[in-house]
């Protein structure tokens, strides 16, 4: 039996109709009872076709729903690659490429979590991850994983442009994350969480192996290699709100970023001291112009663009706002 036999009944009906036509061709007409039988059989087939179409649509809709749910657990660039059929879903399919790797965590999060109720901790963590993930996707990063409050991102795979571009995007993302954290601290303070949370970040650029690692039954699309360890160690070395980048990353971004003097760090797993730089911010001609003044302990949080309003006008605006409120 072949796949054609899937429509055996339908073919039988067609053959019967053809046989009738041949039989009665010379008479120029078909007996009414034969025609009636054919019409009844066609009606059955039409009903079945309609049923199958609806079943197929239902199954397709269900598949789409399942795929949509699964996509929440897989970074968008990887999801796109898998569903396009371009990715071989098997272990052993790895490539050696130069990527920029980013690690971050919240300094002292474990300590903070012992002082919070479970629901509050979940709300803060989810709010933090939601905001950071939005920034990751905005800068075109591939979110590798969350490990509690830690975030691992890489740039350059699966979509590659240039080593310099990926390093630049990784550092710009880190800067925006740091900026956003200062705003979130205010928001969390307002929500009743008094302790400011501080992010620390490490970025490294270099050749890694990227692809599917694991077993045939469960695998991860991830990266391994010395630059991954370096980014993790730099993050662990970083102080509160500090971004440390490796020398190779620095070489790609030094024309747009202000960095401190290079320093050697003794990093676990590295035989020789590693040269790294603290990222301070964008160089003046690349500056985001907004100024932020914040003293959360006395309820002050102010952000303004000095290109659009000078300090005297700002003070007048605050005074006017105060007077209007009293009236």
């Amino acid at each position, binding site marked *: *039996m*072949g*796949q054609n*036999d*899937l*429509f055996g*009944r339908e073919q039988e009906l067609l053959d019967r109709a053809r046989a009738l036509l041949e039989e009665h061709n010379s008479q120029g007409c078909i007996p009414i009872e034969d025609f009636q039988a054919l019409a009844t059989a066609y009606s*059955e087939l039409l*009903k*079945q076709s309609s*049923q*199958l179409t*609806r*079943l*197929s649509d*239902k*199954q397709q809709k*269900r598949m789409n729903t399942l795929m949509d749910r699964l996509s929440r657990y897989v970074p968008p660039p990887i999801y796109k690659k898998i569903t396009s059929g371009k990715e071989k879903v098997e272990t052993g399919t790895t490539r050696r490429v130069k990527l920029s790797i980013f690690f971050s965590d919240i300094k002292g999060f474990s300590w903070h979590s012992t002082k919070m109720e479970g629901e509050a901790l979940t709300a803060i963590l989810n709010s933090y991850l939601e905001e950071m993930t939005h920034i990751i996707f905005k800068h075109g990063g591939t979110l590798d994983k969350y490990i509690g409050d830690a975030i691992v991102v890489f740039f350059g795979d699966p979509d590659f442009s240039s080593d310099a571009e990926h390093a630049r995007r990784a550092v710009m993302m880190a800067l925006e994350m740091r900026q956003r954290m200062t705003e979130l601290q205010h928001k969390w303070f307002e929500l009743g969480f008094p302790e400011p949370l501080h992010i620390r970040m490490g970025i490294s650029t270099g050749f890694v192996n990227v692809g599917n690692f694991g077993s045939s039954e469960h695998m991860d699309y991830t990266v391994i290699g010395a630059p991954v360890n370096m980014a993790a160690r730099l993050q662990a070395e970083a102080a509160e709100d500090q971004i440390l980048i490796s020398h190779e990353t620095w070489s790609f971004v030094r024309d747009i970023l202000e960095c401190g003097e290079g320093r050697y760090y003794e990093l676990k797993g590295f035989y020789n001291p590693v040269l790294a730089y603290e990222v301070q911010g964008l160089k003046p001609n690349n500056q985001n112009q907004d100024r932020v003044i914040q003293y959360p302990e006395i309820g002050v949080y102010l952000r303004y663009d000095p290109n659009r309003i000078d300090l005297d006008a700002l003070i007048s605006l605050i005074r006017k706002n105060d007077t209007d409120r009293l009236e």
Partner: protein
Amino acid sequence: MMKKLHIEGTRYSPRIELDPETRTLLIEGDSYPENAVDVYGPLITALDEYFEQPNTPLNIKMLSFFQNTSSSKMITDMLARLQHFFDMGHPVELTWFYPSDDLEIKDTFELFLEDASFPYSITQLEE
């Protein structure tokens, strides 16, 4: 007496067992084979032999949650055959199990059985 029909299940096709002694038919496992005719064709042929004697009862249990389109075609053909045998006086009844709380799958099975007049039930599978 007719011999038992046993079709081994695979990753892509269900296990099928038609037992003339216990008067039961079991179809267990999801169904998306390359060639649905190879899986269901022998069953439909076996059903024709099974119902040769008049007034032959058959109790059918289905534990198959997902079917590709060609499997759906073969299953509707099978259900049409069962309806035909029921109309001829054979006591046929069917139970189709769906995973607990999955109302979408329950809806799908109701669609398969919308024209059936033999006794059937669509029952939640206890975990």
